């Protein structure tokens, strides 16, 4: 058959069209990624700070009595920042700031050791009543109560819609004596969630990695030609497709009694870790198996021909050679732990815990986002800031996986 001019043209057009379609598709996927990053960074970058990582989430409130002895003239220290305001009469400096929720705050910048604010006592009834309560730089002044020239009790601070400058001005000009202060820590930080995530990683990896590696060794080395191995393998593969919320339900019902043995009541990080380790197992098994398959058979042959038994061959030769692959399996699991939320809502709870322990509830970073957004006043900025942190962690993990697997390939070329 003769190839005509029109046939050639048709072929060319078809080629062009297909090329364009693939180009458009790939542009769309890249665009989505860029949009995601741009959106999250734009919303969250403002709330991102080192303080976010170290602060508690819940603010602590202090209602404090200010001692009667307070007259004096205080000298302003030379090294105070320029944007702070100094109260000559009461000896403290304050500055304006925004909270993680973008609300205006008056933060304490400096307190003179002789200032009445340095000698306040707890005013709330309870075991600490009357005890000295030191307040520190960085806390916010909600309210300072004072008595003016007319003998009236008045309030200054954010509660009276004041900023740092007007607060200092009011106290210095019209306050005769100060009587009570309402001081708050800033809060809104994610230290507790970071600690919870760390515990979660520790527990789930500690369980999933050894069990997963041993299973992979059994499947790939000992039971290689066993009739049941293909069955076992495909059921493990199926486990990877189960939605994690089902694992969460299972964790709540099946694994809860296990955590109860350790005296954990209700949701706990231990329960979350156990559930996550079940979720991780299939991934760890699969990737370890892949890593074991890459180990050349002639290593096994050489070892066996030297009179080593199978266990010696596996644990002295095969497993050490598979370590880079196993490491990348662990990194993949880390990504999964950090990203998981559905299974943890049932098992670890959604209450942000500032001082989590293994046996109490807490939130991982991802669940912290859920918890921020599911309240009555969704805090989008803070949620985005946490998202940035998670994205950065995932990015670092991905790069590490690439580097590791690159090295793995190099070893046996």
């Amino acid at each position: 058959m003769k190839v005509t001019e029109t046939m050639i043209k048709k072929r060319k057009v078809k080629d062009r069209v297909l090329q364009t379609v693939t180009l458009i598709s790939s542009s769309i996927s890249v665009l989505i990624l860029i949009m995601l990053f741009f959106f999250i960074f734009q919303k969250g970058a403002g709330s991102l700070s080192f303080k976010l990582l170290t602060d508690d989430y819940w603010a602590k409130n202090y209602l404090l009595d200010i001692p009667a002895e307070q007259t004096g003239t205080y000298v302003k220290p030379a090294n105070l920042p320029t944007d702070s305001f100094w109260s000559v009469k009461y000896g403290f400096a304050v500055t304006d700031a925004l909270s993680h929720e973008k609300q205006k705050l008056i933060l304490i910048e400096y307190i003179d050791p002789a200032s009445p604010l340095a000698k306040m006592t707890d005013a709330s009834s309870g075991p600490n009543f009357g005890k000295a309560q030191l307040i520190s730089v960085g806390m916010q002044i909600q309210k300072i109560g004072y008595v003016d020239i007319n003998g009236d009790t008045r309030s200054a601070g954010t509660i009276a819609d004041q900023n740092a400058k007007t607060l200092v001005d009011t106290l210095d000009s019209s306050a005769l004596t100060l009587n009570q202060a309402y001081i708050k820590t800033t809060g809104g930080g994610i230290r507790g969630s970071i600690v919870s995530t760390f515990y979660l990683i520790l527990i789930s990896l500690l369980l999933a990695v050894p069990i997963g590696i041993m299973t992979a060794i059994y499947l790939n080395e000992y039971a290689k030609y066993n009739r049941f191995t293909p069955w076992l393998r495909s059921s493990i593969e199926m486990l990877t497709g189960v939605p994690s919320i089902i694992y969460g339900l299972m964790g709540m019902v099946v694994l809860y009694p296990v955590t109860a043995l350790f005296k954990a009541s209700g949701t706990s990080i231990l329960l979350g870790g156990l559930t996550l380790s079940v979720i991780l197992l299939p991934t760890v098994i699969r990737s370890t198996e892949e890593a074991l398959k890459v180990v050349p058979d002639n290593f096994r042959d050489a070892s066996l021909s030297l009179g080593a038994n199978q266990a010696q061959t596996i644990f002295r030769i095969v497993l050490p050679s598979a370590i880079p692959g196993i490491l990348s399996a662990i990194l993949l699991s880390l990504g999964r732990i950090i990203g998981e939320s559905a299974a943890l809502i049932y098992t670890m709870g959604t209450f942000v815990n500032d001082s989590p322990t293994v046996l109490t509830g807490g939130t991982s970073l991802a669940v912290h986002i859920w918890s921020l957004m599911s309240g009555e006043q969704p805090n989008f900025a803070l949620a985005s800031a946490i998202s940035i942190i998670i994205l950065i962690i995932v990015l670092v993990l991905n790069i590490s996986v690439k580097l590791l697997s690159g090295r793995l390939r190099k070893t046996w070329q």
Partner: protein
Amino acid sequence: MENIFEIRDLDLYYGTNQALKKISMDIHRNEVTAFIGPSGCGKSTFLRCFNRMNDLIPDCRIEGKMTMNDTDIMSSKLNVVDLRTRVGMVFQKPNPFPMSIYDNVAYGLRCQNIKDKKVLDQIVTQSLKKAALWEEVKDRLNENAYKLSGGQQQRLCIARAISMEPDVILMDEPTSALDPIATSKIEDLIQELKRDYTIIIVTHSMQQAARVSDYTAFFLLGEVIEFNTTKVLFQIPSDKRTEDYITGRFG
């Protein structure tokens, strides 16, 4: 002449496929026996019977009789690990473990729970000397074995096999991955090792078989066509097929 191996009517099947047919042969002690033949004729499969490496292959079934020093080595009661310490093996592709030169040679001993540093040092030195590698590596025993050249790696594998002080060394095309200079070094080494060990070598190169071996077996389609002293087999082959093969008419 003393026989170390006696093989009678050995059949080997992979599933239903018969790979070796009625093989009978005597292997003499402290001689070099070469197996030659075209690819897929079963010579490597047969070699792997001597240290039971075929055990690792599923669906592999062996019938017949094979004895080493009058002990049945096909018996299921035989301690295979023990057999493999007496029958060492060197593979086609140099396959040192990804560890130091020293650790490679000491590996087999350590697997036998020999941990005395002095004993290990002595055997490692001695094995490397016997494998004609000592002079080249004595200053860098702790370097990774993969830093050695291909020929050195193969001699390291020979040293590793020698470290177990075996009676027999099986070599499965030990020079097929090496250049001519490395090959001739290995061939010289085989002549040296012959004094202490029985050597069975599978080779694709008829010249190599003629150079290094005392006895040669010609394999074709799972059968031994001819087995004789190398001299006789190459000069006056009794079978037409052997003659065709060694004169290069096929294979």
